[in-house]
């Protein structure tokens, strides 16, 4: 499914020898961080990928570059999906924002920024969306301990209250 749709996209997006292939029915293209916006623009304007589904990241801790940012696009015309991937280093985990192309990118980039600390240059509103103001760190990074708690309301010291000392 989708081979005739994927061929020109691969020819266009992977013209510089970028890694590309079909995996579980989805065309996957690895692009350089600087080429993300141009690739997304081509997908939207030339190939009819009108729905921006999702952006998330993978934390390959211990590898370099550490983060892999992943975008999914869907075409309601061709009924196929494309996945763009790029690697960014821990020292500068920033990619271009897709908010000029897709309205849905605004909320999803906020989530990805919350969870992985990925910066989206051009998205002026990266306030926390699932987390809260003042939350330290990025919980889906592999070096964020699952047990760490950051309560907004302090826990009651139950030992003291058991003793009647509250």
């Amino acid at each position, binding site marked *: 499914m989708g081979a005739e749709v994927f061929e020109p996209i691969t020819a266009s997006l992977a013209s510089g020898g970028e890694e590309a292939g079909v*995996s*579980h029915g*989805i065309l996957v293209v690895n692009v350089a961080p600087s080429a993300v916006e141009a690739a997304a623009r081509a997908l939207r304007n030339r190939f009819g990928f*009108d*729905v*921006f*589904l*999702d952006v*998330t990241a*993978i*934390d390959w801790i211990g590898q370099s570059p550490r983060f892999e940012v*992943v975008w*999914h696009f*869907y075409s*309601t015309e061709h*009924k196929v*999906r494309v*996945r763009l991937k790029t690697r960014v280093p821990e020292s500068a985990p920033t990619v271009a924002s897709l908010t000029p192309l*897709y*309205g*849905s990118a*605004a*909320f*999803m980039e906020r*989530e990805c920024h919350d*969870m992985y600390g990925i910066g989206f240059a051009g998205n002026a*509103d990266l*306030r*926390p*969306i*699932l*987390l*809260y*103001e*003042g939350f330290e760190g990025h*919980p*889906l990074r592999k070096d*964020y301990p*699952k047990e760490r708690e950051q309560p*907004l*309301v*302090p826990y*009651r*010291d139950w030992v003291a209250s058991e003793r009647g000392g*509250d």
Partner: protein
Amino acid sequence: MAADPRIANPVRPAFVTSDREGSVIVSIGPSHPATHGTIQIFAELDGERIVRTDVHCGYLHRGFEKECESHTWHNLIPYVDRLNYCSALINDFAYVDTVERLMGVEITPRCKYLRTLLSEYSRLADHLTCVAASLMEMGAMTAFLYLVMIRDYIYEHLADLAGARVTYSYGRIGGLARDLPDGWLKRLGEILEQYEEFIGRVHGLVDRNRIFIDRMRDVGVLTTAQALDYGYTGPMLRSTGAPRDLRKDTPYLAYAELDFEVPVGIKGDNYDRYYVRMREMDESVHMIRQLMDMIPDGPINVDDRRCTFPEKPVVYGEIESLINHFKLVMEGPRVPAGEIYFAHEAANGELGFYLVSTGEGVPYKVHVRSPSFVHMGGAHLMLDGYQLADLVPTFGSINMIGGECDR
């Protein structure tokens, strides 16, 4: 307590001062009696009219994706149930289907048809909940009780099957938890007949009701272009007139063999969202009736030692099965290294799972593309410019489910 109560404001509104004369900024929620769902909306009001809004979600965030990274592929199933808790079975089946595709497991025919039937049954329950709650918020108590009564028949009926009313944990990688109990399909037929009787009454009470039309028609209008730009899927997108449905466009399970229509709206307003859901319920019932005659006999689980638990008698009787059982419980099913994105048409739209495996029994990453979260990203389009009182029915028609929105 003497300790510093460090109660910071958890959200920072996009605007705190009004830039026009006479307008005020109010905070609605996060726990407001007129909205179902924990959500905070900062709204600038000019009289009764909403000028602009800033929508905040996240109050139900519980670290679902983080928690998934320390549990085996099997142990996630109860968590997945709690995403959209109004149609938990669809979440179950979307998740296990994605894992099965990554493993290269093909489910048995009986399992395929049962999952399709139960997905549609769940969609029916989900739409009943959404429509009932929306109507109740506008004061239509009788219609609410009719619909919720049918939903409760469905919940009790699913409890006979899975042992729980809402969160079923019924899907399994490679199959289902158990087969249908005796007489389950007969009772299903009775419930569908009762559904038809009461849905007719709701149509009669509501569809041409002057109050209902005045409050719903031309309120919260969304165009197809806006809906696509904001990533909308499911009934929200279809209400704008776009016949986009993953069950038709990229058929999975047994949908390719079923006869059904994709109802669409004409204007993308609150009335269309109500009517599209009502029509989709009828299509679901039509599909369930077809599926009741299509379910073949046979096993519900694949015979694959990588994911399916061995039968209890052999676990106790032979050492290989005992070890197999032990390994599946302690280490989890080994899913080949790789990544996959797969989506089912859930009650609210495209529910996608993006899974990354490094070949272990525990996922490296689980990401959920939840329709509710995406829909909240464009909620301001349907709120700005309308009356404050319209906020409640419009928000109800979006059907935001905190469990999947905030994860």
